[in-house]
């Protein structure tokens, strides 16, 4: 069993999606995350264990390597794709409630801003941290965030903005959310955002990289 999980973690870490994927070249023709997750379940490994002992630690490694600039965006995307191909097999257990995730995370790029790369990377890494991610897309205003929160009152919120001009819209969104849900936690991120700005607008946390957000959520959950 341990062997399965170790192999699966290695596939996720290196972005080996499935057997037919040619990437990375040194893992060519080997089983990928897809096959290994399926086989592990067939062999009786618990879905919780797959999530906790293979996918989450592998994605944490990926996030840390990215923070240290040992890997880059394409490698991170490959890892996230491998993770997703394993997650597909866990989905029925999430839906039935047999396997529980750590909580819900709502994310969106704020109004006026169409940039989605940073938002997507954070969403992937947080999903890889064991959370259910609700991605509202780009150009998301306060109302849409509120509606998502109404549907998922305990969810944590993430706001993304790439431009100095659209970053300004974070302020309004934070104010509106905190008015209705004063105990909600809001993370902010994106190229122009800083810790000072985060504090100034009353948000709860800023991270310069995806893994920082994952670690903060982990703290909140524990």
């Amino acid at each position, binding site marked *: 069993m341990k062997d399965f999980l170790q192999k699966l973690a290695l596939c996720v870490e290196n972005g080996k999606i499935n057997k037919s994927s040619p990437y990375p070249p040194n893992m060519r023709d080997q089983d990928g995350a897809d096959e290994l997750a399926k086989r592990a379940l067939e062999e009786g490994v618990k879905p919780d264990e797959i999530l906790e002992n293979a996918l989450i630690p592998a994605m944490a490694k990926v996030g840390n390597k990215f923070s240290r*600039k040992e890997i*880059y*965006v*394409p490698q991170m*995307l490959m890892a996230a794709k491998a993770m997703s191909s394993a997650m597909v097999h866990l989905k029925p257990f999430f839906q039935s409630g047999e396997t529980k995730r750590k909580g819900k995370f709502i994310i969106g790029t704020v109004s*006026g801003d*169409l940039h989605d*790369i940073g938002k*997507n990377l954070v969403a992937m890494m947080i999903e890889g941290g064991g959370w259910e991610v609700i991605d509202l897309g780009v150009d998301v205003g306060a109302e849409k965030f509120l509606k998502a929160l109404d549907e998922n009152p305990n969810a944590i919120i993430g706001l993304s903005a790439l*431009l*100095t*001009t659209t*970053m*300004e819209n974070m302020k309004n969104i934070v104010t509106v959310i905190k008015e209705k849900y004063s105990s909600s936690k809001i993370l902010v991120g994106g190229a*122009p955002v800083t810790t000072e*700005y985060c504090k100034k607008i009353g948000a709860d946390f800023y991270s310069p990289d995806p893994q920082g957000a994952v670690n903060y959520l982990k703290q909140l959950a524990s």
Partner: protein
Amino acid sequence: MLELAESQIRAGADVLDVNVGFPGVDDIILLPETVLAIRGSFDVPLCLDSPNPKAIEAALKVAGGKCLINSVNGEEKSLIALLCIAKEYEAAIIGLTMDGDGITHDPEKRLAIAEKILSRAVKEGIKEEDVIIDPLAMAVSTDSKACIVTLETIRLVHQKLGLNITMGASNISFGLPGREDLNSSFISLAIANGLTCPIANPEKITAAVRATDLALGRDDFAVRFVEYFQSKI
């Protein structure tokens, strides 16, 4: 700011892009102020870069000389707000090949948006040569076809419309190592396809631009190429 302007001009910038986007800033006041400060010291064409048409208009009022507006896109709202201002101040416009539906990954569709911007501008009385198209450069780290879509758009706009083409080239290397090398290679390919006025840091890309022009037979006796490298010694 003036020091930065001077070093960029010294490094070979032909136009300065002026952007005052910063949290809490009122660009209707700051953009014209910045333009006036640069105008006081340098005689270089300016590109007014703001999402706010009112700030652009305020800056055009004080700028004098020919300016560039960065930017218009294919959305009605944008065309209506900016084309008449451009016409009034005889400014050139940069037209982004995107519209209300966002960004398409089909070069033919980007060309169609460029055609729309051009025809609307001409109808407004703006000269064709005052329309510059931005084919949109997107990060290749998340989409391995991103650069080829941009290059194909450049080729189409160049061949079919014959317009000047600009873009913020350094976007493409986001999330990757070796950014300057990648940017230089991409700029070379883009120039070969019809890019005429990249927006970039001249301290970093002038070498690639001069080398490409020389390789394409556009620099007789390598005059500009040699001059650039001699000036660096």
